[in-house]
C-alpha cells in the first residue's frame, strides 16, 4: 500500500497520459476531466464536469449543499481516501448527511459505495481524510466504536439466527442482565416493545425468526440496530431482497424513523426507489463523490447519467467492419432463476464477424445470466449457434475451444486464480490448447513464453510472469485477461464490463485492442454499464430490461441520455412517489430510440403510476 503513488488531495489528477498506453479517444472520457475526478463536487466550490453535463441538458439541477441546514451534519466525511493494493477504492470522498434525513448514496456496482460504508461503520480504516459525527471528529477502529458513536448498519444479507426468537436475536451480544448472570428477558421485551411501537415497526418479540418473511426480518434487523442505541442507520441495498409491497412498507418505516429524528443513510443503485424515499442524494462514480443533489431537482435519467458518466465520446469516423457472416446467433434464449422465474426471457440476436453488439441495461436485468448461458455455465432453453454449429448442448470447455473468448464481469471470481502466477493464469480457460499444453501435459515453456508475449503486447505492468495475479493492479489484471482471451484466435468474444474498475490508461488500451480485433473479424458481445463505452464501441446496440431485449438502438445517433432513459425504464413495479422520476419516464417516451413502441410501453407504464 505504501507503494501507491501519493496524490495530494484535491489536486486535479491528469490521468492516463502514461507513456506507453496508446489512446485514441481516452481524453474525451469523463474521467479525463480534471475536476470531476479530483474535486469533491458536493463542496460548494463550484460546478463540476458532471453537473456541467447535466446542465447542458436541463438547467434544473441545483448542486450546492442545502443552504437551510441548521445544525452541524449528523455525519460528515471529508476527503476520505482508501487504497487497496493496486487500486484506489475511495478517493476524496466528501459527504454531508443532515440530521433527520434519508440520505441516499447511489452509484454503480463497484463504484465504491460498500467500501465507503465499511469505513463509516468502522470495518475499514481510511488512509486519508476525516469522519465527523455530529460535528466532532471520530476514528473508528472497529464496528463497536461506530455503534458506540450511535451508528448502526443493516446489512444486505440478514444476520439472524433462524432458530432463535426475535427477542433472542435482538439481544444477542448485548443481553440485559438481571443481577449477576441471568438474562433479564422482561426488560428486553419491554424495551423491544417500546422501540417497535415508537417507530411503528410492528415487531413481535416472541416469534421464531424462521417463521418471518423477508420484510419482517429486515424490520428485526433494523430494530436490532436501534436496540443498540443507533441514531444513524446505514442500510446497505435494503430493497435488493424485497418484493415491491415490502419495499413500500420499508419506505413507510423509514419515514417513521426519520420523523422520530433518526438519520438514515440508504445505499442503492435503484434510482426510482432513491427518488421516492430520499431527502438528499449523493452520487458516487469511480470511487469518488461526483454530485450531491436533491431528489426534487433531478430526474431518474439525469441521476443515471451522473452515475455512469454522460459525456459523449468525441465523434469519430468509424468504418464499419461488419460482414455478412454470422458468427454467433442466439434464438429464444430463456434462463430461469432458482425460483423458476425467467431472468432472461426469449432473447434473440445475431452478431456478425467484425461486429460489436452492445447490450445496455441497468445491472441486474439479466445481463450476467445471459452471458453465463452463452458460455454454457448456466442451464438455459433456446438455441445458441456458433458459426454453423449448434452449441446449445456444448459444455463450457467445448464452447471455449470452439472459439468463444470470455472476459468475465468479475475478474477476481471468474477470471483469475489470484494466488497463482501470471503464467498459470495464462493457462486458465485455455488448458486444452497450445501453447499451454501438449497432450495431457502442461507445456511450461510454451505457456511462459506466451505469457511474456501477452505481457509485452498488452502492456501488462508487472515485474515478471512469476508474480501472483493478486499483486497486479486491477487494470493490469484486466489487460492480462484481455490478452489471454484474444489469444488462440477467438471467433466470438463475450466481454462483460471489460473496463470496469480499471484506470483510464488501461481502459483506452483495452478499447484499442477490442477495436483492432473487431477490424480483424472478431464478433464481440459487449455488456457494459458504461454508456460511453457502449456507444463508442458498438456497431449495434440493444437494451435489456428485466431479462428482455426491449429496444434496438443505433449507436451512431443515440445520445447517452436517451440510452440511459431506455435502460432505467423508470421502474414500472415500484410506485413513484415524487415528481422526479415521472418526467424522466415521460421524457423517455418522447425521445425514445429507433424502437419507440417497446420502449415507450415501459415509459408510459411508469408515467401512469406516477
Amino acid at each position, binding site marked *: 500500500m505504501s507503494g*501507491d503513488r501519493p496524490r495530494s488531495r484535491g489536486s486535479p489528477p491528469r490521468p492516463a497520459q502514461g507513456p506507453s498506453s496508446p489512446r485514441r479517444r481516452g481524453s474525451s472520457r469523463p474521467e479525463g476531466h480534471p475536476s470531476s475526478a479530483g474535486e469533491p463536487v458536493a463542496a460548494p466550490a463550484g460546478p463540476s464536469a458532471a453537473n456541467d453535463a447535466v446542465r447542458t441538458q436541463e438547467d434544473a439541477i441545483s448542486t450546492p449543499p442545502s443552504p437551510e441546514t441548521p445544525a452541524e451534519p449528523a455525519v460528515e466525511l471529508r476527503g476520505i481516501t482508501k487504497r487497496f493494493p493496486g487500486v484506489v477504492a475511495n478517493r476524496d470522498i466528501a459527504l454531508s448527511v443532515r440530521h433527520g434525513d434519508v440520505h441516499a448514496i447511489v452509484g454503480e456496482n463497484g463504484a465504491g459505495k460498500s467500501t465507503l460504508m465499511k469505513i463509516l461503520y468502522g470495518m475499514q480504516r481510511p488512509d486519508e481524510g476525516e469522519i465527523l459525527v455530529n460535528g466532532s471528529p471520530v476514528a473508528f477502529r472497529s464496528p463497536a466504536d461506530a455503534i458506540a458513536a450511535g451508528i448502526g448498519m443493516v446489512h444486505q444479507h440478514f444476520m439472524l439466527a433462524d432458530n432463535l426468537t426475535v427477542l433472542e436475536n435482538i439481544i444477542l451480544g448485548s443481553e440485559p442482565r438481571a443481577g449477576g448472570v441471568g438474562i433479564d428477558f422482561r426488560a428486553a421485551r419491554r424495551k423491544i416493545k417500546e422501540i417497535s411501537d415508537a417507530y411503528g415497526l410492528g415487531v413481535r418479540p416472541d416469534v421464531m425468526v424462521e417463521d418471518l418473511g423477508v420484510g419482517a426480518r429486515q424490520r428485526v434487523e433494523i430494530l436490532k440496530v436501534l436496540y443498540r442505541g443507533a441514531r444513524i442507520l446505514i442500510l446497505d441495498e435494503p430493497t435488493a431482497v424485497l418484493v415491491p409491497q415490502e419495499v413500500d412498507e420499508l419506505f413507510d418505516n423509514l419515514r417513521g424513523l426519520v420523523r422520530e429524528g433518526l438519520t438514515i443513510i440508504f445505499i442503492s443503485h435503484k434510482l426510482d426507489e432513491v427518488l421516492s424515499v430520499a431527502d438528499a442524494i449523493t452520487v458516487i462514480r469511480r470511487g469518488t463523490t461526483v454530485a450531491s443533489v436533491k431528489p426534487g431537482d433531478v430526474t431518474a435519467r439525469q441521476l443515471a447519467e451522473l452515475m455512469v458518466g454522460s459525456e459523449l465520446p468525441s465523434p469519430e469516423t468509424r468504418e464499419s467492419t461488419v460482414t455478412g457472416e454470422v458468427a454467433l446467433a442466439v434464438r429464444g434464449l430463456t434462463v430461469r432463476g432458482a425460483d423458476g422465474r425467467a431472468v432472461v426471457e426469449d432473447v434473440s440476436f445475431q452478431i456478425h464477424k467484425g461486429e460489436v453488439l452492445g447490450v445496455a441495461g441497468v445491472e441486474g436485468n439479466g445481463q450476467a445470466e445471459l452471458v453465463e448461458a452463452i458460455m454454457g455455465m448456466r442451464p438455459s432453453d433456446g438455441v445458441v449457434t456458433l458459426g454453423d454449429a449448434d452449441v446449445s448442448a456444448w459444455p463450457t470447455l467445448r464452447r471455449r475451444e470452439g472459439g468463444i473468448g470470455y472476459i468475465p464481469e468479475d475478474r477476481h471470481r471468474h477470471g483469475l486464480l489470484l494466488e497463482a502466477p501470471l503464467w498459470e493464469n495464462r493457462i486458465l480457460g485455455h488448458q486444452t490448447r497450445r501453447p499451454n499444453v501438449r497432450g495431457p501435459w*502442461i507445456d511450461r515453456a510454451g505457456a511462459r513464453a506466451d505469457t511474456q508475449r501477452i505481457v509485452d503486447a498488452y502492456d501488462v505492468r508487472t515485474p515478471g510472469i512469476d508474480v501472483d495475479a493478486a499483486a497486479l493492479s486491477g487494470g493490469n489484471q484486466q489487460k492480462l485477461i484481455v490478452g489471454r482471451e484474444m489469444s488462440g484466435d477467438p471467433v466470438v468474444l463475450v466481454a462483460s464490463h471489460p473496463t470496469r474498475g480499471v484506470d483510464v490508461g488501461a481502459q483506452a488500451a483495452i478499447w484499442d485492442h477490442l477495436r483492432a480485433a473487431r477490424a480483424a473479424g472478431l464478433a464481440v458481445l459487449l455488456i457494459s454499464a458504461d454508456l460511453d463505452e457502449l456507444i463508442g464501441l458498438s456497431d449495434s446496440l440493444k437494451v435489456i430490461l428485466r431479462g428482455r431485449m426491449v429496444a434496438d438502438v443505433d449507436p451512431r445517433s443515440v445520445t447517452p441520455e436517451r440510452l440511459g432513459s431506455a435502460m432505467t425504464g423508470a421502474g414500472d413495479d415500484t410506485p413513484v412517489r415524487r415528481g422526479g422520476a415521472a418526467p424522466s419516464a415521460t421524457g423517455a417516451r418522447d425521445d425514445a430510440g429507433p424502437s419507440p413502441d417497446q420502449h415507450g410501453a415501459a415509459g408510459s407504464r411508469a408515467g401512469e403510476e406516477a
Partner: protein
Amino acid sequence: MSSTFADRLLGRVRLGGLLALAAPLLAIVFAALVTSIVLVLTGSPPLGTLALLVDYGSQPRTIVMIVNLATTYYISALAVAIGFRMNLFNIGVDGQYRLAALIAAAVGGALVLPAPLHILVIVLVAVAVGGLWASLAGLLKVTRGVSEVISTIMLNAIATGFGAWLLTTDRLAVAVSGSNNIGTKPIPPSGQFPGFSLVPGTQAKVFGFVVIAVVLGVAYHVLFNRTRFGFDMRATGQSEAAAVASGVNVKKMVLVSMILSGAVAGLVGMPQLLGASYSYSLDFPTGLGFTGIAIALLGRNNPVGIAIGALLWSFLDNSSDILDLEGIPKEIVIIMQGTIVLSVIIAYELVHRYRLAAEQRRVSRELSTAAPAPEGAGV
C-alpha cells in the same frame, strides 16, 4: 484480499524463496519452546529428554521401524493431500484403507498365483476397494450436495462395522494359531512384498513398499504440476468459480479426485500387510488415516514436505517408547506432535501475510519507478 485461511492452511498458496524456509524454522523453534515448557512443568529436563529420544531413535533397529512407519504415514498423507488440493476434506482415509486392506488380505490369502502377479492383484484389489469406498462420498457430494466431511466420517463408521462383520470365522477370518486373535488367511510367500536390509546392524528389514511410496510421491508431484488434469484440480481448489468459467467440469473433478484419494488410501495398509503381518487380523493398525491428515497439514501438501513430516512423526512415535523406561510420560510426544502441527500452521500464516504485503509493495514500487502511471479508482 483473496485467499481464504483454508487455502493457506492447506498449502494451496505457495511460498517461494527464503520465506519457504522461514516458516518451518519458525515453527520448529516455537514447538521446541512450548515442549520445553511442558517438560519443565512436568519435572523433566528438556534437553535430556531430547537426547534420550535422539539416542534411541538413532539405533539401527529403531531407524528401520521409523522408515517403515513413515512409509505408511506418507501414503496416508498423500491420499489426504490429493483431496486437500481440490478443497475436499477426505476424512475417510481411515475407513478406506482398513476396508481395502481387509478385502485385499482376504483375496490375497485365497489366491495362489506367481509372485509378482500375486502382489499386483492384492494391490489392485486394495486400490479398487479404497477408490470405490471413497466414490460413495464423491457421488453423494456431486449428486446430492452432501458435504464429504460428513459422509466420509459416516463411511468410516460403516467401514468399521462392515469390517467387523466380514472379519468373523463364518466369513473371511480364520483363527490365528497360538492366540485367540482372528485374521484373514495368511498371504502365501508369493504374495509377500520383499523387504530390504538397508540398515546395517539389525535384522529388521525396511519395507519394500518404501519404493512404491517414493513413486507415489513423484507421481503426485507430476500430476499436480505437470499435467492438465492436475492444473484443473488446482484451479478448482483455488477458485471454483474461475474453474467453472474456464470450462472445468467441477462435478467430474470432485468425483475423480475423491476416487483418486480413496485409491491411494487403499494402499495405506499395504506396507504392513505385504511387508510384515501378511494377514488382516484384529490387531491391524488403525487410525493411520487421521495421522495422515495431520501430516498432510504439516507437509503443506508438498510431497517433500509430507515426507519430512511423516519421518518426523514416525520418529516421535517410535522413539517415545524409551521415555516410559526413564520415567518420563510418553504422552509428552503427543503434545509435541500437536504443537508442531499448530505452530506450522501459525508460522505459515504469519509468513504468508508478510509475503503478500511485501510482494504487493514490491510490485507497486517497481512499477512506480519504471513507469509512473495513473491510478485507477473503484474496485
